[in-house]
């Protein structure tokens, strides 16, 4: 993959990132928001892996997408699902 192609791929991932972030902010339903948040973490993990930082990518996947989302879900199950 030539230098130009990888720059474009990065740009595409970045746009996806911003969209995920906006989606998290906009959605009213907290459960959907946490799912989109774990998607956001996975895209971030993709960006880093493409960049050549596998350690960080793996940690972000395991912790960002995994543990954080689980914690969010368990908190939501204990409190309220819909945001007023």
């Amino acid at each position, binding site marked *: 993959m030539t230098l130009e192609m990888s720059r474009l791929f990065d740009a595409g991932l970045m746009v996806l990132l911003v969209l995920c972030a906006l989606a998290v902010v906009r959605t009213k339903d907290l459960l959907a928001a946490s799912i989109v948040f774990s998607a956001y973490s996975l895209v971030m993990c993709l960006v880093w892996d493409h960049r050549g930082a*596998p*350690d960080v990518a793996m940690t972000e996947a395991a912790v960002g997408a995994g*543990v954080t989302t689980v914690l969010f879900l*368990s908190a939501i199950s*204990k409190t309220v699902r819909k945001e007023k």
Partner: protein
Amino acid sequence: MKRALVIVLLAIVAMPLLAAMAAMPRFGSAEQPAYTHVAKRYLERGVEEAGAENVVTGVILNYRGFDTNGEVTVIFTACAAVIAVLAGSRNRQDQREAASSVPESLVVRYVVRLLAPFIALFALYVVLFGEVSPGGGFQGGTVFGALLIVMTVAVSRNQAERLLPLRIRPWLQIAGPLSFLAVGTAGVVLTGWYLGFPQGATAATRLMLMVLEFGIGVGGATVIASIFWRLGDEA
């Protein structure tokens, strides 16, 4: 109206930040100060000095070992903080018997039972091969923690807790900081500096790195599981 005000405020804050970003050294250039100063030595002599092929693991455990000591303490602090904030609520006991709220489904239970040993093996692989391939103590620990969470949700809480017996759980939670203390004092004995690893990829350095990786892994897994269980106990 409040939202518009916040957006305007953030736009104002964005101006200097973006200007600074533009003035930062060029992204990805090999001459930027970050790449030419300290990192140059890590990359060139990192492997034989730090004793790990994966230079990042070398930096984490050897060059900047004390940062990871701090990190392990932070993860334990999180566990202690969660317990301190949530402990003592009345309904701890009755919650334990009530089956997890997820409707019982045989397929999930069977698949989780089948996959459990493989996930554990993968976690062990990630921890053990931290020096050579990407990954390391904490990533492996998180995977093992995730395994415990899945078992708690899908199979049953008691079976998952049998993996981390209550009596030694406080010691398991502090496996990370303890391993750092042990390796640190060993470093003082061997090289005269706290957290000092003997030069060159000798057996002692390999062993000390391995102990650290295991400590972080076990510590991380127990903490994540304890936090999830404690959060789960809150009705």
